[in-house]
């Protein structure tokens, strides 16, 4: 899922666990997944399944997967995928990292299971290391969001981001991280920018996997960036990890509490997944003066469908244009580009007329 592998890999390798990183999600991954997954499951399941099959080819024997307990089907995905893999004669051990029901200890014992005979102190340090890497990656991604619409030469931001991430990936021990992060930040700062260029700002909300995995969202951040749009995501990896796996142990970070408060006016009930956050973040983006909001969801995603039906009301009450994009393995790129282009045109013309009036 996006760059999540960077932090998980760091954590496990620090704990002397050998890690197999499957190749980035690609058409091949999706084909494998589509072939063996139930048709009406959403795209994340299909991609994950493909990832695991590709990892098995590289010699992986244990799956570490996130779980969940809520109305979203994702909670069962680890088990379903495990069962499918077993039917296909893959010998995998399954470890599900789930939001602990009561105490963070539940999570720790699962990690302990993977890591074996290592001191608790080292395990905790490992987890912290992974988390800090996630924070570093998020920081770089945010910088890329800022740079992309303002870069003077197309493509420089993308290259800089890849180089900056390499710095983070290469760090093997917690002590080296701050230095590497500084180097990475310098790489990003070196991107030549035209600071005064007028840009549009769009908030991306929706289902977490679709938001974080560039293959699933067809590189929407890059596409929008090249159209002169600065994007912000409602979900970043480190925030999600902190909130769901550490139960908010790390304080003073942006979290979804505010978004959930904002959602109360429109939706008073937990609907699973990130439905509530989608509604709340849309309100937040409107209040922060963003030009528009794009909601992304995989086809058949229930929590987001609930949110989708509420968004038109927010849109008309707060005067912020909202567009919903649904993705699955059938999505064509041309259609997506047309819609994005038209949406960006709409926002640009709207902004122009407003500025004339003001």
């Amino acid at each position, binding site marked *: 899922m996006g760059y999540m592998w960077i932090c998980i890999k760091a954590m496990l390798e620090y704990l002397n666990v050998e890690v197999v990183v499957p190749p980035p999600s690609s058409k*091949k991954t999706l084909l494998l997944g589509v072939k063996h997954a139930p048709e009406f499951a959403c795209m994340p399941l299909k991609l994950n399944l493909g990832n695991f099959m590709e990892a098995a080819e590289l010699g992986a024997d244990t799956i570490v997967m996130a779980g969940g307990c809520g109305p979203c089907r994702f909670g069962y995905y680890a088990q379903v995928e495990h069962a499918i893999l077993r039917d296909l004669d893959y010998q995998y051990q399954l470890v599900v990292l789930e939001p602990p029901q009561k105490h963070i200890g539940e999570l720790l014992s699962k990690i302990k299971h993977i890591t074996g005979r290592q001191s608790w102190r080292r395990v905790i340090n490992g987890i912290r290391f992974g988390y800090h890497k996630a924070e570093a990656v998020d920081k770089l991604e945010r910088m890329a969001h800022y740079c992309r619409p303002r870069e003077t030469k197309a493509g420089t931001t993308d290259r800089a981001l890849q180089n900056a991430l390499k710095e983070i990936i290469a760090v093997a021990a917690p002590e080296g991280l701050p230095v590497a992060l500084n180097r990475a930040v310098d790489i990003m700062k070196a991107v030549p920018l035209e600071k005064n260029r007028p840009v549009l700002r769009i908030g991306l909300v929706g289902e977490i996997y679709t938001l974080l995995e560039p293959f699933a969202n067809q590189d929407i951040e890059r596409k929008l960036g090249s159209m002169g749009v600065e994007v912000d995501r409602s979900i970043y990896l480190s925030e999600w990890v902190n909130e769901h796996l550490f139960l908010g142990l790390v304080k003073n970070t942006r979290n979804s509490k505010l978004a959930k408060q904002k959602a109360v006016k429109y939706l008073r009930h937990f609907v699973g997944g990130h439905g509530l956050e989608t509604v709340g973040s849309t309100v937040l983006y409107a209040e922060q003066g963003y030009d528009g909001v794009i909601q992304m969801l995989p086809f058949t995603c229930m929590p987001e469908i609930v949110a989708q039906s509420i968004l038109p009301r927010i849109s008309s009450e707060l005067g912020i244009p909202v567009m919903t994009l649904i993705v699955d393995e*059938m999505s064509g790129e*041309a*259609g997506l580009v047309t819609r994005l282009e038209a949406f960006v*045109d709409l926002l640009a013309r709207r902004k122009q007329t407003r500025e004339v009036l003001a």
Partner: protein
Amino acid sequence: MYGYLGIDVGSVSTNLVLTGEDGTIEQSIYLRTQGKPIEMVQQGLKQMQAALPGKVKVIGVGTTGSGRHLAGVITGADIIKNEITTHAIAASNVVPGVQTILEIGGQDSKIIILRNGVVADFAMNTVCAAGTGSFLDQQASRLNIKIEEFGSLAMQSSVPVRIAGRCAVFAESDMIHKQQMGYNVPDILAGLCEALVRNYLNNVGKGKEILQPVVFQGGVAANAGMKAAFERALGHPVHVPPYFDVMGALGAAMLAREATNRKTTGFRGFDVADRDFKAGGFACDGCPNVCEVVEILESGQVIARWGDRCGRWSNALDRNQKIS
């Protein structure tokens, strides 16, 4: 005389429009794309040149539609714009004060909401292509009716048959069922129109505030049966502009006028119609995505590439044309 050229390469039709400097239509051409966009653009240019009186100098070109990049590369367009923007621009110029545009083309249908002359909201059909021109085409040919006669036949109906219109496949089964039950053809056609309108309003138009004046355009607007069905469903008149079938091209020409303001055009002349263009393609082997890269060749030379996710090929060309 000076003029602006607008080209709309859609899935079903390729349209060309030449406007005068003031934006009025001098000449319009409607061709069937027939799966050969390059040839059709060239043929359209030829016909356009033949139809124009003597000395017309094209001082701006805009392309739109799903084949806009292709057409843009061939003609050297000044602006390449998506069809939502072009349709909105054209409609708001032809029908001042328009607040709602219903557009049904060959493969897609969209609704555009304008307020104060600016696009405020739009929607396109998402995961289903039922209820677009292609389906009507197909049903007309199944019943052995010319698509041009579809509308007038549907208008003869007195009691439209109710047809399940959510899915094109089920709609067809239901039509066959009704036909075997002995309902007459006009009633079935009128029923189909109503079913498509229901489907359109429920899927594309859901949650949108449809205010007057309403403009209905795109190829399907030629079908009087569809217009009547919309008017019945909405309860107020629906306006079909005179150049309803070339509105996208008209909008592109209008945008070309804006884009060439104080600039010279990139138009490569009508003689591109006689040059040799080929579209080639290959599968990139750089990563497991195996992108299908498309190349446009002019007399054996690559003039444009697209289709790769990473930009390895499209950025490799020295011509600094931005594709997307």
